[in-house]
């Protein structure tokens, strides 16, 4: 369902060209749990952003659910992102002036969904993630683990097929990190495709499939 063919992503740094992604070929099936590992600068975040359509390939093709999304215009891209892809960031990226519930609501607002339906969905996801009593707290009144769970709720509220997580536990202590991982994995158990970038070997070992990147290339692709 995700298929990358001969993907190149080049950056110009001064008068040098850096190959952040160098001829990537990758296929990921629906419901897979994949970790992307590698040293910093290996291109793992660039790969994640490209799958999330925040970044664009210099050349090559990207098929999402059988559709070549490299051909979409900006508006269609935004729509596809809204419907199919959820992001979880290391820095949470919650809007500080909005409450937990309002943050979770954002993707639904952008999709133009009716307020009564929005309310229903939010209540449901808050309960699932054990955040109901935190619904009206602002991010600065939440713990790190709670913040990341709010971010996960926001990422999954539109029921996307793919969840992209970039170092989701990077800013959390071990205990909260463990909780967040459990949450992500339980979502994967329910069918969502989970792609996680991490440099933590212990985390990487939890996934069923693991790819290792070096210098913009996939060095290894292993199933455990």
């Amino acid at each position, binding site marked *: 369902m995700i298929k990358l063919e001969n993907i190149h992503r080049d950056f110009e740094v001064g008068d040098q060209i850096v190959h952040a992604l160098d001829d990537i070929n990758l296929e990921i099936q629906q419901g897979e749990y994949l970790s992307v590992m590698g040293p910093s600068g290996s291109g793992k975040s660039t790969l994640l*952003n490209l799958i*999330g359509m*925040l*970044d664009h390939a210099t050349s090559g093709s990207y098929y999402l659910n059988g559709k070549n999304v490299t051909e979409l215009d*900006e*508006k269609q*891209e*935004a*729509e596809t*992102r*809204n*419907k199919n892809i959820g*992001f979880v*960031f290391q*820095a949470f*990226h919650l*809007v*500080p*002036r*909005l409450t937990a519930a*309002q943050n979770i609501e*954002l*993707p639904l*607002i*952008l*999709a*133009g969904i009716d307020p009564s339906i929005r309310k229903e969905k939010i209540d449901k996801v808050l309960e699932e993630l054990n955040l109901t009593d935190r619904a009206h707290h602002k991010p600065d009144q939440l713990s790190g683990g709670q913040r990341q769970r709010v971010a996960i709720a*926001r990422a999954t509220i*539109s029921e996307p097929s793919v969840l992209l997580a970039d170092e989701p536990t990077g800013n959390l202590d071990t205990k909260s990190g463990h909780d967040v991982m459990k949450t992500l994995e339980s979502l994967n158990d329910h069918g969502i495709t989970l792609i996680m970038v991490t440099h933590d070997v212990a985390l990487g070992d939890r996934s069923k499939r693991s790819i290792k990147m070096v210098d913009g290339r996939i060095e290894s692709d292993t199933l455990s």
Partner: protein
Amino acid sequence: MIRTNDVIAFGWQALKGYRSRTVLMLLAMCIGVAAVLMLTALGEGARNYVRSEFASLGTNLVIVFPGRSETTGQGMGTMMGVTPRDLTLDDAIALTRNPNVQRIAPLNVGVAEVSWQNRKREITVLGSNSELLKIRHWTMARGDFLPETDWDRASAVCVIGTKIRNEIFGAHNALGQYIRLGENRYRVIGILASEGRSIGMDVEELVIIPVSSAQSLFNTPSLFRIFIEVKSRAAIPNVIKFAEDTIRARHQGELDVTVITQDAVLATFDNILGALTYAVGGIAAISLAVAGILIMNVMLVAVSQRTSEIGLLKALGASGREIVFLILVEALLLSSLGGLIGLIIGHLGSWGIRAALPDLEAYPPGWAAISSFLIAIATGAIFSLLPASKASKLDPVMALARH
């Protein structure tokens, strides 16, 4: 596509979220709008004031005075000796011979010493006839105005203003008393009501005597003015021509008087004050533009402060156009709210001006209220286009990484 209601709610939350920035911009906007309103209210007040001053001079009024307008001024000092021929009482009588003339009042002005018992003071004395009261829309407080007699008949009666009455007579009854003007004594037959206002003359400080009495008092046959009240507005040009022809014929073919209408003078003042109102309104509108630039700056700062938020919105599926929409609506909310507060403050301020200066009917004109509000909204929109387009072009990867 995002719902408009949600965009407004989102913008409103952003305004509430950054309170000091919001208050600052509201202040800039509302000062601009309020300034436009108050300054134009002042301009309009001045215009109305001049209008009412002229209205008190009488309606459909044609004024004849000696000398052509290109000669020396019109002050009281010029009433004697400047023109080769005097404007006489006979000239005034000749001017009555036109069916369009409703009434005519000749006018003589001078300064004399008035005294009663041991009190005396300098006073402006008008010489005229019974018609002056109606022409100038004055009213009597007590007694009667000058009697309707032949204009060339002097009689020793006078009408006085309230201030003169109070100063000279104090607690005594003034009616029927004799006051001394120069060598002669005049019986007080009436007291003018004091509400009248009139350009160049304070009704409260006047003594009015028959015109021929004034001619002998000041020892001159010359008139200062002839007021002609015309029956209808349409007949004014006809009467002007008649007056000019009559005077020319009586003055050996030379037109040595000026005939003006009060309308012409009023129109000139009206134009000047109208232009002034637009000018001050325009100057105040510049402050609105300054407010717009402030909005642009603050929005630019807001965009860079909220870079990661905008990156996030893109990651969550907002298109560039939706980002522009969000920023624009936020700015519009801000500027329309600022404009609205400005309208309220401007009206309150104008009310304050009216309370402080009751003579000035300082109501902000409708066009000023509407246009300043629209300018406020337009500047808000125009000056947030740049920040909005900057936000929409943000690279989400960079925006999110900057956190």
